């Protein structure tokens, strides 16, 4: 069964190629079958393969399948090889299962779109690239998948390319993530020049065996460079600006790429190369700081957004900030756990938001929604489940278990500290505020816009399935005070080092008392959001519009001015330089040659007037001149 591993990424790739070749002949139904079916088959296969892996773990708790040697140049021979272990299992299952549900949803969501086939070509290509990314056994193949998902992200953000603004958003996402990718490839070069291999297992073994003696600087630099790549792809500060604009794409794209899977590639990369970060405490600290800063910045930005999808985008940035914080305090497993639960509830939220937006004829402004509780009861129920999981409502949502674990790790880990703990609690409070703010504004209050379209089974089934996962997904890792049922932890222990929880702080962090603090903070956030946006909505809006508060709201709405800053420091100077460079000296030299040729052509063709008498006169003149020279010399 394990030997079928290669089919998991191959099936979506085949689906994509098939749609490219036969897309026009298949029609919409056929396209939907091929596009969704290939991912569905891949999901079934992933369940079977991972099931057989869990039933009988192979030696070393990892299965490696080398398909062929990619190329062999100067002793560098990266393989097209797949590597399945506990970490990749979590990612593969989430990508294929959530991916399948989102594909199914898309069949209905995109049914009236002219680019139906194109959409599924890109989506299948994305699933393939993402699977290559998480199954790659060497960093170069990982980089291939990494760039593949970046390309698909660009193509799908700019999917409605008739609107220049969408294309601009796609370009922005591509260029901003490219900044991080440059750091990543530089990190790969550095690792290769020092260790002469990019095969992950071998590389990590080499790094661990040769450290700390001579290479601590190299390990630190490599860790920081890989962090640069992760920061770009996972939309962390200071490269987070592309993700809110990425919401220009269709809602299923936001759910699959910009919430559930692609943006967590940075988390995967750092978890996969955790040996580097274990050996470089400074790089680890940088990861934790990036995560903490991002989760706070994005949380406050999410609090004031008017666009439903932008609010969710900021919440995604904030939740991935939690994952980075967990990675930074050596809570590798907690980060993977939060990735999984976040994939469920954030995909759910985006899909539900997509239904709402389509139902209200492309209305994105939450202040023009309202009262949808009775109009779209199924969407209301599932969105509320998703928002509750996002807010980490205790016990009944998966978000609680993973977020509480991160909060506990941020305090109890030997790398943790009170600052990280307080910041993550503030983040949890703000999350409770903004997630339920959306529920109150969209589904309660007076109805402001007519509902023009209602979801059918292809949209409802994924919503129900993801809602079920958002409730039950957390039960695979219960904290000790709830009985300590933790199969996910046992699985991840085979591939990742456990979090170093030691000392009195750890003892407190894992106790009921710490959990009660988390629960109280979350409850305070949700409760305050009820007060602010249910009975006192008018007063809250008036308060936000007051002159003394307005600048802060504007700052948060614009994402803390990062866009404003980049626009002035990078975008405009580059544009100005490019404009100036259009007419530089080199251009004049090259253009001058062309101009000379043109002038010569004009002069010569003016002589070719077709009048023989003219030619004869010139010939005669020539003869006279030659004779004169000959005679008079």
């Amino acid at each position: 069964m394990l030997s079928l591993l290669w089919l998991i990424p191959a099936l979506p790739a085949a689906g994509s190629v098939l749609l490219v070749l036969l897309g026009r002949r298949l029609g919409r139904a056929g396209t939907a079958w091929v596009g969704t079916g290939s991912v569905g088959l891949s999901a079934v296969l992933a369940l079977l393969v991972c099931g057989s892996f869990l039933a009988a773990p192979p030696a070393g708790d990892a299965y490696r399948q080398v398909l062929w040697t990619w190329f062999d140049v100067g002793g560098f021979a990266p393989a097209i090889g797949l590597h399945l272990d506990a970490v990749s299992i979590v990612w593969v299952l989430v990508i294929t299962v959530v991916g399948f549900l989102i594909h199914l949803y898309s069949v209905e969501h995109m049914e009236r779109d002219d680019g139906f086939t194109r959409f599924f070509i890109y989506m299948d290509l994305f699933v393939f690239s993402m699977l290559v990314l998480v199954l790659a056994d060497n960093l170069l193949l990982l980089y291939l998948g990494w760039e593949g998902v970046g390309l698909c992200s660009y193509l799908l953000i700019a999917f409605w390319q008739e609107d220049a603004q969408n294309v601009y958003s796609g370009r922005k996402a591509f260029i901003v993530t490219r900044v991080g990718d440059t750091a990543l490839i530089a990190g790969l070069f550095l690792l290769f020049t020092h260790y002469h291999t990019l095969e992950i297992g071998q590389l990590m073994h080499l790094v661990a065996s040769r450290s700390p003696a001579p290479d601590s600087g190299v390990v630190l630099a490599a860790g920081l460079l890989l962090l640069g790549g992760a920061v770009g792809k996972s939309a962390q500060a200071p490269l987070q600006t592309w993700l809110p604009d990425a919401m220009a794409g269709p809602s299923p794209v936001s759910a699959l790429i910009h919430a559930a899977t692609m943006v967590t590639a940075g988390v995967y990369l750092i978890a996969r190369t955790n040996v580097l970060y274990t050996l470089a405490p400074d790089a680890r600290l940088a990861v934790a700081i990036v995560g903490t800063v991002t989760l706070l910045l994005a949380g406050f930005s999410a609090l004031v957004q008017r666009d439903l999808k932008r609010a969710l985008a900021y919440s995604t940035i904030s939740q991935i900030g939690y994952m980075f914080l967990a990675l930074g305090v050596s809570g590798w497993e907690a980060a993977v756990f939060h990735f999984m639960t976040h994939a469920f509830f954030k995909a759910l939220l985006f899909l539900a938001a997509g239904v709402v937006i389509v139902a209200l004829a492309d209305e994105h402004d939450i202040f023009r929604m309202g009262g949808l509780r009775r109009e779209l009861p199924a969407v209301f129920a599932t969105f509320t489940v998703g928002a509750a999981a996002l807010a980490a409502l205790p016990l009944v949502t998966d978000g609680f278990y993973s977020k509480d674990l991160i909060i506990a790790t941020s305090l109890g880990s030997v790398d943790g500290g009170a600052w990280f703990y307080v910041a993550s609690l503030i983040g949890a409070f703000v999350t409770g505020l903004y997630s339920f703010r959306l529920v109150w504004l969209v589904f309660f209050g007076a109805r402001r816009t007519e509902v023009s379209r209602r979801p059918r089974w292809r949209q409802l089934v994924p919503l129900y399935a993801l809602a079920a996962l958002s409730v039950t997904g957390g039960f695979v890792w219960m904290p000790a005070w709830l009985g300590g049922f933790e199969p996910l932890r046992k699985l991840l222990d085979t591939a990742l080092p456990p979090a170093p929880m030691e000392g009195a702080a750890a003892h407190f962090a894992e106790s009921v008392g710490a959990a009660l603090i988390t629960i109280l903070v979350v409850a305070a956030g949700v409760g305050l959001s009820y007060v602010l946006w249910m009975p006192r909505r008018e007063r809250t809006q008036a308060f936000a519009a007051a002159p003394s508060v307005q600048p802060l709201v504007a700052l948060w709405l614009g994402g803390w001015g990062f866009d404003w800053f980049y626009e002035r420091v990078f975008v405009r100077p580059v544009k100005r330089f490019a404009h100036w460079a259009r007419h530089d000296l080199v251009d004049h030299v090259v253009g001058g040659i062309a101009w000379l040729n043109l002038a010569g052509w004009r002069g010569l063709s003016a002589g070719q007037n077709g009048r023989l008498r003219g030619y004869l006169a010139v010939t005669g003149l020539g003869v006279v001149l030659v004779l004169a020279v000959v005679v008079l010399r």
Partner: protein
Amino acid sequence: MAAVSLDHVLALAAVLFAVGFVGLLTRRNLIVVLACIEIMLNAAGLAFVAAGARWGQADGQVMFLFVLAMAAAEVAVGLALAIRFRQAMKSLDVDDADRLRG
């Protein structure tokens, strides 16, 4: 009979040739152009004859006979061309035939 000096004859030939050439350049009527070519041929023939007389040899006169025969053939071809020209261009103006302009 006073002998006419070679220089005078050659000067006459040169003037005749120049008259023909200038006519060739300035006149637009195809018939006149042909006539100008005849004048230039005869200027060359006159130079042959004068040169033959100067050195007392018959070669110059023989060559002139060739020139005459060639001129007759040339006129035959030239007039035929003139007729075709008139049919194609509806005129005898040589400047109308400028289709080879670049």
